[in-house]
C-alpha cells in the first residue's frame, strides 16, 4: 500500500453543543478504496463532513497530501480535488438534471467522453436528463448524485451510502464504476451499509462506533472474520443472510 492521501489524526468535532467525534484517526491510502463502516449514528457522516470542512474540527488534524486542511473553507477543500456525495444526495431539486451536472463541472463544460461513460454506467440518466432533479425517483436521485461527483476526474471521491435505495442492477453498475475509477487512479472513501459491496470493493476498512474508530485494517481480513464482524457491528453479515 502506498502512502496515505488523506489522514485524520485525533479529530474531535462538535455539532452545536454536542461532542460527536471523540478523536477519530484514520488513513486513506492513495489509489485505493477505503470503506468506513459502522452502525447508524456511529459518526460516519460526521467524519466525512469534517473532512469537507462542513463541520469544523475542534481539535486534531485533517491532512491531505501533507497539508493540514482542517481550517480550510469548504470551497477551497473541494478545489484541492475532492468530490463529495452527501448522505441525502445534496441535489438541487429546482434545477434540472442537466443543470445539476453543469454545476459539478467546474470548467463550465462537460467532457463528452466522460458524459458518454456516465450514460453507459446509468443508461437511465438519459431519459430523465431534462427533468427537475426534485422529480426524480429515490434511486434516480442517487444516480445523479454520483454522476455529478464523477463528471470530472478528481483525486479523492468521498461517497456517503451510495447504494441506499438502488435496485440490484444499478448497484452492480455502480460497483463496476467504482472499480473503473480506481483503475484511473482515483482514491475513494466510501461509507456503506451494503456489506457485500464493501467486501468486493474495499481495500482497507475502518469501523466506527460512538464517534471513535474501533478497528482499522484490510477489508479482506474483516470479511473473513465473522467473530470480528459480530463484535464490531453487532451482527455477522454472513449470518444475517
Amino acid at each position, binding site marked *: 500500500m502506498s502512502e496515505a492521501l488523506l489522514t485524520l489524526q485525533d479529530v474531535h468535532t462538535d455539532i452545536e453543543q454536542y461532542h460527536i467525534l471523540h478523536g477519530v484517526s484514520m488513513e486513506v491510502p492513495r489509489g485505493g478504496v477505503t470503506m468506513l463502516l*459502522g*452502525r*447508524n*449514528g456511529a459518526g460516519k457522516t460526521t467524519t466525512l463532513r469534517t473532512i469537507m470542512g462542513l463541520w469544523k474540527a475542534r481539535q486534531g488534524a485533517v491532512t491531505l497530501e501533507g497539508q493540514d486542511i482542517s481550517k480550510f473553507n469548504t470551497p477551497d477543500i473541494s478545489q484541492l480535488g475532492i468530490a463529495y456525495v452527501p*448522505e441525502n444526495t445534496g441535489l438541487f431539486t429546482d434545477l434540472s438534471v442537466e443543470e445539476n451536472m453543469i454545476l459539478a463541472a467546474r470548467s463550465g463544460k462537460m467532457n463528452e467522453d466522460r458524459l458518454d461513460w456516465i450514460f453507459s454506467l446509468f443508461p*437511465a440518466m438519459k*431519459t*430523465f436528463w431534462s427533468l427537475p432533479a426534485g*422529480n*426524480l*425517483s*429515490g*434511486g*434516480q436521485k*442517487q*444516480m445523479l448524485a454520483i454522476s455529478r461527483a464523477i463528471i470530472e476526474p478528481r483525486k479523492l471521491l468521498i461517497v456517503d*451510502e451510495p447504494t*441506499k*435505495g*438502488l*435496485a*440490484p*442492477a*444499478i*448497484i*452492480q*453498475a455502480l*460497483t463496476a464504476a467504482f472499480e473503473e475509477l480506481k483503475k484511473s487512479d482515483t482514491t475513494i472513501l466510501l461509507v456503506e*451499509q*451494503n*456489506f*457485500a*459491496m464493501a467486501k*468486493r470493493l474495499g481495500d482497507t476498512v475502518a469501523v466506527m462506533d460512538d464517534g471513535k474508530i474501533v478497528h482499522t485494517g484490510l477489508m479482506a481480513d474483516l470479511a473473513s472474520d465473522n467473530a470480528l464482524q459480530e463484535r464490531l*457491528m*453487532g*451482527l455477522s*453479515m454472513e449470518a*444475517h*443472510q
Partner: protein
Amino acid sequence: MLEPAVLSTRDLTVRFGGHVAVNAVTADFHRGTLTAIVGPNGAGKTTYFNVISGQISAYSGSAILNGEDISSLSIAERTHRGLGRAFQLTNLFPNLSVLENVRLVVQSHMHSGFDLFSRADGHQELIDKAEHYLARVNLLDAFEQPVSSLPHGDQRKLEVALLLALGSDVLMFDEPTAGMSVDEVPVVLDLIQEIKADKSRTILLVEHKMDVIHALADRIIVLHNGTLVAEGDPQEVMQQDVVQQAYLGNDPDADVREAS
C-alpha cells in the same frame, strides 16, 4: 378469489406532462397478504403509492378501497378510510416529541382534532394508546425526546409506529429499511412480520433488498417503466427473464445481487 380484494387499482395511470410514470396498472391486494412491489429505479413504485394514497392525482383509472372508488377523495379522507402509508424518506414532525408524534396520529384516528376547548393532556386514553404503539416498536424509553435527535434507525421505527397507530387496514411501506445498518434491519422486519401475522391487514411493500422480499412477500408485482410486467409467486416471478434483465441486471456475478 374467495374474498374480494381490499384494495385494487383499475387501469391506474399517472402522467407528468408527456411522461407516463404509471401506465394502466391493474392489480388486487388481498387481506392478510403482503405484496412486494419491485422494479428498477424510476419504475414508478413510489408514484404508484402516491396515487393510491392521494399525494398525486390519477390521470385516468381508479383506486378502489373496500369496494369504494377513492380516486377523488382527499389524502386525509383516504387515511380515514383505512389507507396508511409510510414514506421513502423519513417524514415526521421533527421538533415534536416522539410521544406527541404518535399521539397526534391516535387523535386523528379518533377524529378529535376539532376539539377546541378541552386540554389535550387531559385525554389520557389517547396517550395510553400512543404509548402502547411506542412500546411495540421499542421506543417507549425515548418518548420525551424530540424526533430530530433520534438516530436514523429509530426514526424509521417511529414511522412504523405511526402507521400502526393509524389503525389502517392497508399499510404501505416504501423501502422501510433503506439506510439502516445491518443490526437495525431485523428489528423493522420483525415488526412487519408481526403485523402480517395479524391476518386482518393488507400490506404493500416496496423493497430492493432480495432477502427481505424472500423473507416477507406472499406475492410480488413487478413494475417496469410504469407498466406492470409480472405478478405472482415471488420465487417464480423472480426467475423470469424479463425480471432478471430489467431488475437484477444480467450480470452472472450473483455475489453482489444477493447481498442485502
